[in-house]
């Protein structure tokens, strides 16, 4: 429930930013900021798109925008100036896990439904909103999982695979974790697959399944709404 309200608030902010950008005031502001940085007028749509994406990121993080004109002006100004700067050193700090935990619903049956769904592009887009998650690796793993389980991609030779007794999607989950850099989930070369490693792997796989289930639920509800 809290999440639904949170999303509704977020979506509203994104829409309000988009609406303000198309208003006369918003367009005048974008032109003014382009002029200030000496950027071609033709960049207006790109700058607006980048600003809307920034608003989406705010929404994904659960951060409200208090004043749409002020926030949008400041964001357009910074984005325009950023184009003229060198790329900055930035490390992605994990977000507050409590925000993301609430988005993770454990519904492993949804995986089967997921594979039947045809809205793969929407699901990928939904997963790709990295700010919704405290860590980036589950996003990475979820995208790789879809590549293996749905697109039928074959993992490379060095990718670990379950030996036996594995279910249909276990190999895809292993590949997903491997390509996401979660190599601690697998025994080192020649080492034993200890209980600790298995437990770690299971927890990671559960997290990936939750991200996928959340994406499926969210995109399915969008279709239902339509």
């Amino acid at each position, binding site marked *: 429930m809290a999440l639904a309200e949170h999303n509704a608030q977020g979506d509203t902010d994104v829409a309000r930013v988009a609406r303000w950008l198309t208003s006369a005031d918003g367009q005048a502001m974008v032109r003014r900021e382009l002029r200030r940085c000496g950027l071609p007028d033709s960049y207006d749509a790109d700058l607006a798109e980048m600003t809307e994406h920034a608003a989406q990121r705010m929404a994904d993080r659960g951060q409200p925008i208090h004043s749409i*004109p002020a926030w949008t002006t400041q964001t357009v100004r910074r984005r325009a100036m950023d184009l003229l700067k060198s790329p900055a050193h930035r490390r992605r700090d994990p977000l507050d896990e409590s925000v993301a935990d609430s988005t993770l619903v454990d519904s492993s049956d949804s995986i089967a439904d997921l594979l039947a769904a045809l809205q793969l592009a929407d699901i990928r887009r939904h997963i790709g909103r990295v700010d919704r998650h405290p860590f980036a690796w589950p996003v990475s793993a979820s995208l790789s999982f879809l*590549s293996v389980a749905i697109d039928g*991609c*074959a993992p490379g030779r060095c990718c670990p695979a379950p030996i036996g007794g594995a279910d249909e999607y276990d190999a895809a989950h292993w*590949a997903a974790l491997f390509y996401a850099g979660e190599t601690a989930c697998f025994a080192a070369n020649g080492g034993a697959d200890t209980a600790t490693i298995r437990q770690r792997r299971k927890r990671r796989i559960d997290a990936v399944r939750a991200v996928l289930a959340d994406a499926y639920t969210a995109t399915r509800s969008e279709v239902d709404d339509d």
Partner: protein
Amino acid sequence: MTDVTDPLDTGPEPLLGVQQYVAEWDPLTDDLLLTGTLPGPAGSFVMTLRGVAVVLDAADPAVVNSLMITESTALADSTRQLLSRLLGGDVAGAAWGAVGDPTARMRIGGRRSRRGRDGVNPEMARLVLAMSTAGDAGLRAEERALANLEAAVLAHRLDLQSSIDGCAEMLHDSALAVARAGPLERTLGRPSDADRLPTSAVSIAAALCREAAGLVTDDLLRARLLHLTEPDEPRHAAAGASAPAPAPAPAPMQLPTMAKRTRLDHAEEEVAEAAIAYLPHALDRAVTPDSLPNLIGGVEVTISRTSNDEYELRLADWADRADGWWVRAFTGADHVPLAMVPMASDGPDAVGRFLVTEHAAASMVVDVVNDPAEVLAPEQIAVFRAAVAAGKRAGRLERLDRHDEAQLAWQRASELHFSAGDSWRGSTAAAIAAGRFQRTDGARAITLEPVVADLLAPMA
């Protein structure tokens, strides 16, 4: 537009020189904006001091592009003093006149000598350059420490340390990191490269360490810094010997060794679709021009296919630079995310491996970012950022007295700016490349001393 001619100023020379600005106050954001000149084909260097963002032109750091003062209706006294120091008391006072009046656009400063501009104090310009560079992506930890040390030393020279948040910590932490990293030759390049390093890079770094040693309050740290510059001096050698062994660099994530470019099955090679037949060419074009390695190191990034559906983006000798970076693959048409993988070290190289279908690979777009939530830049914007990076590289090469290479870099910047639809910057870069660029006030561009650590063109 109101015109405020500058009264005679008898105070000390302002750090940003005497230049013309248009002052505007934005009632929405409460920012006071002083616009000087448009950023040229190399973009800007930006530094933030206590609520004041100073933006200098990267092609000619003697020129101020703009200043942005946040929360301008409630300026602290320290910010007012800083502004007076930067602009001169008269110009700062005139600029405050714009605050509170959203309709005012005041032209201030620089009228005394017609259009003439006294440029930014070279030490100040170098401080902005050093601070900006220290924040760049891709520097190794010890290089970033050296860059921060340079910025902290310059800030002390200008007596601006109290205007930079955390300057004391920056000085101490960077000095400690540089001391821990061991000999300066190692900090500036790999041990195997030490004999290729010009003495100037080491001597500049040594001079910085000596100056920093005079600023730090910790005696042991001072001795360790001096030991770096005079390793044979017995007084400092004791400090060097008592120092703990250099902390190992944070280990980037390791991937298991992977067989390189396994041969594809014949059956797989015989693909029917024309797009896939051109896959190697598609892979050459897949990486966006504004991917991090392109922007900061001018490195040509390529992707190769390592198995049926596995692709590899490899950066040679970048293992310790790309830690925390991500490789992302999107569909070409509508930019649906296909893969997003962390870069990991594979021996000395940084590598990102990802899975996509052969069909998707034929038209995918791949970028390298340090924030995976960042939006994939539109094509024109990506080219523009590459153009600005080429301009910055040209400026760096000029500072290193490598003029022939600088000329080529300006030409490249010109081409890219034209491709990005920016004909003004394209023409300006072409004029600089051809040696026929003149500032409207006839003044010559200043060339600063190069900063020590800069990936755009390393000193080595």
